C-alpha cells in the first residue's frame, strides 16, 4: 500500500534534497535488478554455447524472448491496474497501469529492435512483413496511441478512466502477437516453446546451457527489471502529481 500512495504532507519535508524518503526495498530491488541484468547478459555472452549455424548473434535471442515476456507481464499488470482503477477509483491504480504500460512499451521496443538486429544476418533483411513481426509492430503502435490518448484529455478523472479502458483493450494486440504463430502458419518466425511452424527459419535446438541461460533471463526480464523500473516510474508520477498540486495551490494564493 505505502509505496503506491502519495506521501503524506509531513513526510514530504524529509524527502527534499535527500534519498531519505526512499524505501529500503526499492534500493534492494534496484540493486538486484542491475546485478541480475548484468549477470543475465554475461550468461548469454560467456556461459551459453555458441549456435553452430547462426554464430554469436544467436546470443541476442535470450534478451529478445525475455524482453517480450517482460512486456507481456507488465502490460498484463496494466490491465489489472486499469480494472482496479475503474473499480476502486484510486489514483494509485491508474499510476500503476501507466507505469506498466510505459515500461512495457520500452520492453517491446527492445524486443522489436533485437529481433531486427538478429534478422539481418539470419533472414538477410532488417524487416519483413511477416505476420508476427507485423502484429508486434502494431502492438507497439497501439501503446503509442495510448500515450496520445492520455495527452489529449485535460480533465484528470476523464483521462484516467478512458486510459484505463484503452489500456485493457490494447492488451488484445499483445495476445494476438503471442498466439499469431499458432494461427497463421505462413509465418517464418520460429516458436521457442512448442513446435515451430514448418517454414520457420532460424530455429534451433536448445542445449542445457542455453536453456539455463534463457530461464534465468526470463526471470530477470519479467520480474526484477520491470519491478524496479515500474516502482521508479510510479515514484516519478507521484512527485509529478505533488508538484502539479503545489503549482495549482501557488497559483491560487
Amino acid at each position: 500500500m505505502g509505496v503506491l500512495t502519495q506521501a503524506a504532507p509531513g513526510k514530504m519535508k524529509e524527502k527534499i534534497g535527500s534519498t531519505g524518503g526512499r524505501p529500503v526495498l526499492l534500493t534492494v530491488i534496484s540493486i538486484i535488478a542491475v546485478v541480475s541484468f548484468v549477470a543475465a547478459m554475461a550468461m548469454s555472452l560467456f556461459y551459453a554455447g555458441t549456435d553452430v549455424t547462426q554464430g554469436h548473434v544467436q546470443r541476442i535471442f535470450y534478451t529478445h524472448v525475455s524482453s517480450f515476456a517482460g512486456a507481456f507481464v507488465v502490460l498484463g499488470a496494466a490491465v489489472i491496474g486499469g480494472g482496479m482503477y475503474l473499480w476502486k477509483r484510486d489514483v494509485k491504480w491508474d499510476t500503476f497501469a501507466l507505469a506498466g504500460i510505459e515500461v512495457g512499451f520500452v520492453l517491446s521496443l527492445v524486443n522489436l529492435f533485437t529481433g531486427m538486429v538478429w534478422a539481418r544476418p539470419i533472414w538477410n533483411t532488417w524487416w519483413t512483413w511477416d505476420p508476427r513481426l507485423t502484429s508486434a509492430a502494431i502492438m507497439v503502435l497501439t501503446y503509442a496511441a495510448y500515450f496520445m490518448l492520455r495527452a489529449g484529455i485535460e480533465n484528470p478523472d476523464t483521462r484516467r478512466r478512458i486510459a484505463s479502458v484503452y489500456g485493457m483493450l490494447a492488451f488484445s494486440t499483445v495476445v494476438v502477437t503471442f498466439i499469431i504463430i499458432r494461427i497463421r502458419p505462413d509465418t517464418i518466425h520460429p516458436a521457442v516453446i512448442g513446435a515451430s511452424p514448418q517454414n520457420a527459419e532460424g530455429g534451433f535446438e536448445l542445449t542445457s546451457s542455453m536453456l539455463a541461460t534463457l530461464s534465468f533471463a526470463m526471470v530477470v526480464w519479467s520480474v526484477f527489471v520491470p519491478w524496479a523500473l515500474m516502482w521508479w516510474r510510479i515514484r516519478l508520477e507521484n512527485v509529478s502529481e505533488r508538484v502539479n498540486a503545489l503549482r495549482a495551490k501557488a497559483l491560487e494564493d
Partner: protein
Amino acid sequence: MNGAETLVIPDTTAYLLLGLGVIVGMMVLLVARISVKFRQLEKDEAALEEISG
C-alpha cells in the same frame, strides 16, 4: 571438438555487438529519462514548498 574444423560457424559477432548496444542503450535511456525528470521535479517541489512556506 574434433568436428569443429569441418563446421563453418558464421561470424555474426558484429550484429551481436549492435544488439547489445541497442539493449543497453534503450535501458540506459529509460532509466536516465526517469531519473532526470525525477530530480527536476524534486527541485521544483522544493522550490514550490519554499514559496508557499
